[in-house]
């Protein structure tokens, strides 16, 4: 089965968000990475001061956030949120 890309994709606009991570609050539970519907998050190479890998946006996917706020809702530590980009 071939998967076809719709021909009029360019006409469809989706809301854009910018993910902001408060790295020092993160405890590496991974919920945001698991739940992001666009799968744009991954663990950082770096550690935060508590010694955890915090989420970062994958390289090249900075414009992919659709402002659904799943990460913000699911984070138990209020360590991630998204801001709407107009």
């Amino acid at each position, binding site marked *: 089965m*071939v998967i*076809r890309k719709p021909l*009029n994709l360019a006409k469809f606009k989706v*809301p854009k968000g910018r993910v902001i991570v408060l790295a020092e609050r993160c405890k590496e539970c991974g919920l945001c990475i698991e739940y992001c519907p666009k799968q744009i998050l991954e663990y950082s190479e770096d550690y935060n001061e508590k010694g955890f890998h915090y989420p970062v946006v994958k390289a090249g996917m900075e414009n992919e956030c659709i*402002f*659904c706020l*799943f990460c913000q809702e699911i984070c138990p530590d209020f360590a991630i949120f998204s801001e709407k980009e107009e």
Partner: protein
Amino acid sequence: MRIGVFICHCGKNIAGVVDVKELVERASKLKDVVYATDYVYLCSEPGQKEIQEKIEELELTHVVIAACSPKMHATTFARAVKGVGLNPYLLEIANIREHCSWVHHDKPEIATEKAFRLIKAAVAKVRLAEPLEPIKVPLTRKVLVIGGGIAGIRTALDIANGGFEVYLVERTPSLGGHMAQLSETFPTLDCSACILTPLMVEAAHHKNIHVITYAEVKNIKGIIGNFKVTIEKKPRYVIPEKCTGCGDCMDVCPVIVPNEFDQGLGARKAIYVPFPQAVPLVYTLDLENCLNTQKLVVCEQCYKACGPRAINYLMEPQEIEIEVGAVVIATGFDLLPIENLKEYGGGKYPDVVTGLEFERLLSASGPTGGVVRRPSDGKIPKRVVFIQCAGSRDPEHGCPYCSKICCMYTAKQALLYKHVVPDGEAYVFFIDVRAAGKRYEEFVQRVMGEERIVYLRGKVSKVFQREDKLVVWGADTISGMAVEIEADMVVLAPAVVPSKGTADLAKLLKVSVDEFGFLSEVHPKLRPVESVSPGVYLAGAAQAPKDISETAAQASAAASKVLSLLSQKEATLEPIVAHVDKELCIGCGLCWKACPFKAITMVREEKREGKKRRRYAKVEEAVCQGCGVCMAICEKKAINVAGFTYDQLSAQVKALLEDE
């Protein structure tokens, strides 16, 4: 008892094989037969008159007519005998055409003997016949139309204009069906939407039509005049009364998925209307693709954007019960899945498309705005190959029939393609061009001649990819050459098959289907829009592949049948129903279990002095269809179908088997 036997020649159909004179002579010697004769066409006006005159003149009490199948003319002859005061159930038809002369045309002597036995059996049966009166039941003057395509809309409008209430049920979020997907219609090149959308709007605003979209018929019980229907409305997650159709929700929805209406060639959001002219113009949230689930609502962007607060994530499926007197099935067609057409690269190469997909590419309201583009890279194809009979007329694919519409729509698509891509080349592979319809042949000739489209007679053996081209290998049987065409795009005309769910619906309504799943009519010429189930009518491509003009004609025909039913005072049912002999019935309940129509209930007798109240079976006459299952299972011969009693059938069989 005075029985008259009338034997029909049916021109040469019967008399050409069977010795009719011999039949008359032998039949006149049968017990209680006072008169036997033959006639060239009994179904003709003078033929019927002959029967009537003899009944009156000879005071006949019972009549046997040996002619064609009772399916053909039972009603004709019943009307004739009734005209002179004879109860039509004292008439028996011996089928000596379909059951005898047609199948034994090579053995005339044995055929004559068989015909005589059939007549003898009919005489034996009619001797035990009782006069019966039709059963009258009250009539609910409302109609259910299943399917909101052109067939359903036309039927609903015609019935509603006749003054009766109609429920028009459609499975998808909008009325319109496949016709709404088409670009232009052949042979006039009218824009499909321009014809259809006014009808959709008219149906939606008609005071007699209740349009129920995004809903399915779950269950239907009852009989002609009184059907009880359960309809399940799927949750839209948008409150229709509040939705204004503004589209603010769609703008903010972050999920983009392929649009089924555009055959996946265009996109839609998870909250959507399938196409801008949708009726009703109410958005539908497709929870399968939405980021939310019924249990977890996180993304509320549409909810926040909706001014009138029409979105409700907690909506549940809703069941509604309605009562109607008649049902029209107009469930339409689907195309054979393209994945089934592997030899043409269907489902393998993105640039092999179906006719319906090509319609979307040609449509001004389609995903490309009417510019034909390849699904793979969006380029405008400069060479297009059309392959007709992709699956049709091909027993290998299970569709030996002709899909009827493909020759015409392929010609139309090739023409429209040439209009939008004037420097493009179009090739059409065909077996035959079947253009039987008003102005159809002229249209095809114009396409072949004026538009410089190459028609190649022959089949395609293989389609495969070479770099970014599709290579079509075929045969041109007129020049006798093998052909190789390097095309940018291949358009298949897949076989037309019944729409998904037709089989379930047919089972629910006890309507028979043919071997391909299309709904069967009672008789293709005499009763073309009626199903075998009384009160259930057929319209459109669910019955057989047909184009829009034919569909509209059949839809209006179905509507007129419904109107003539509803203009009667009561619904009339055949009195061929089961009767219980209370004295013989032992109340075992076997028949109650066996009855497929649930027409039998087990009841107790009224109180009797000093005696035990006995249990016995009771038949609901209006529900009984006279199938005879109860009669076959009853050990005490206590239940009998009127007109086909145990005694009658055994007399008939005995007469068939015994030698003179």
